[in-house]
């Protein structure tokens, strides 16, 4: 465990800058919002009405949708940066010419890969959750001035959205990690390119010969994204069933685990030059 901690710390040091980029982008975004708000406030000749929600019977859906949507932008950054870190996870040492140094340490490949996987994935998760919580506090504080605060639906919207992104990130990150074990450069683009090509070939063959060949690309899309979880949007009781405790979540975890194991086995058998 002591060795694993050392690896985690090393991988965190190496990826710290990349992990923190979404925070800087969001900080820039906030700064821009404040500047534009102040600019509009001081330059507007008419009285501004920021929000008008008179006559609303329930504010639940507004709180739900607002909190659900506010995760979208940091969520997209999260997915991009997860792919970015994970697609080079098993190649970066080689590119940096330091693979011999790291592999000359008495630590198993399972620990090395486990640490890279965790830092790439959990590090990005932590950043997304951090940004999400900050957004949650800021946005709901502002909204509470105009609408009766509905903590339950605000939280459910936030929680629902963040869980969907975390799960998507888990599968996408694992695919990128696996591709980094196979391809030396631009692993994700190459892997997805090949899968797309296979998808097109499968579609053509199915269309010409009337076959029903399954497409791995379709399967991965279905496993990665969580479209059906958007049913019964603001019903807080459906969250556990639709988002967490369902068969698809289990499949996603199994796929990620299997991809991690395969990646490590490939990594273990690589020559170190």
């Amino acid at each position, binding site marked *: 465990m*002591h*060795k694993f*901690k*050392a*690896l985690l*710390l*090393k991988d965190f*040091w*190496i990826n710290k800058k990349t992990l923190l980029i979404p925070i800087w982008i969001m900080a820039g975004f906030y700064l821009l919002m404040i500047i534009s708000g102040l600019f509009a406030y001081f330059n507007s000749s008419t009285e501004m009405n920021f929000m008008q929600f008179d006559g609303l019977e329930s504010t639940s859906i507004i709180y739900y949708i607002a909190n659900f949507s506010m995760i979208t932008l940091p969520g997209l950054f999260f997915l991009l940066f997860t792919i970015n870190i994970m697609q080079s996870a098993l190649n970066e*040492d080689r590119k*940096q*010419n*330091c*693979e*011999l*140094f*790291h*592999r*000359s*340490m*008495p*630590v*198993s*490949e399972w620990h090395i890969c486990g640490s890279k996987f965790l830092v790439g994935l959990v590090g990005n998760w932590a950043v997304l959750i951090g940004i999400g919580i900050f957004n949650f506090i800021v946005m709901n504080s502002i909204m509470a001035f105009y609408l009766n605060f509905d903590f339950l639906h605000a939280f459910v919207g936030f929680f629902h959205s963040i869980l969907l992104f975390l799960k998507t990130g888990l599968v996408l990150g694992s695919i990128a990690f696996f591709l980094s074990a196979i391809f030396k450069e631009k692993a994700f683009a190459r892997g997805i390119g090949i899968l797309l090509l296979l998808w097109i070939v499968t579609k053509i063959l199915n269309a010409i010969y009337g076959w029903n060949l399954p497409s791995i690309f379709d399967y991965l899309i279905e496993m990665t994204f969580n479209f059906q979880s958007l049913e019964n949007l603001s019903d807080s009781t459906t969250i556990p069933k639709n988002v967490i405790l369902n068969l698809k979540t289990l499949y996603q975890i199994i796929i990620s685990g299997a991809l991690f194991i395969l990646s490590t086995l490939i990594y*273990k*058998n690589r*020559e*170190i*030059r």
Partner: protein
Amino acid sequence: MNLIEISNLTKKYKNLHAVDNASINIPEGKIIGLLGKNGAGKSTLLKCMLGFLKHEGEIKIFGETLSKHKSSLHNHIAFIPDVSSLDDRLTVQQTIKYVKNLNPAWCEKTAEKLLLQSELPLKQKVGNLSKGMKTKLYLMIILSLDVKILLLDEPTLGLDIVFRKEFFNTILGEFFDETKTIIISTHQVEEVEHILQDIIFIDKGKIVLQESIDDLKSKFKTVTISSDREAELDNALLKMKTLGQVSGIVSSETKIEDAIEAKPSLSDLFLAIVGGNHA
């Protein structure tokens, strides 16, 4: 007792035999020089010894057959590759802390002593260090490990002459004892000659010679005669002409009248046995 036993080791890169049917034994408690020209297969041989490269033939380390890389091996073996392969993204301090936390063979007392000598800027990124400083850091880290076998592949590349001398004359001597084995692959053979006990010559992937330095030197001698008697050295393994004189490496039993005799240097012996114009 042999710490490393290598039999019929072959490593091919497509059609090139980087190591060709090599068989050597590395005993305990020796400082061994691995000498060969550029591209002779020295680095490949060392990497095969650690299981980094897939190979044919058998490698036994501490009596255990090594078919592929085993991380547990590094509890007892430390390695410096020929290119500075430290992680440029870490600072000097982070690199030291990383190895210290990861490697149970780390000896804090030795590390502190070496760190003091090396004057390394702890807060600086490794990537910003000069080549010589990187090599110093690598040496400092590796020599802080209390391991049985030390594999050094061109360990002093980029170092200034003062530190190179200090390294070979003092620092390495402090690390070495009769329970440890050091294998040094280097081009600067003159600098290590005095500390080596055994020598391995490698050429075109083949092991040409493995012998103790004393035995090797006792088999040959350098003789110097005037240039007008050059014909007497026609059977010499190596002839070197200087102003008005000619020297040759000959068998120690060879008798040449009025010749100045001396012990041959390792680099001359290498040239005599392996051939070529550089080692």
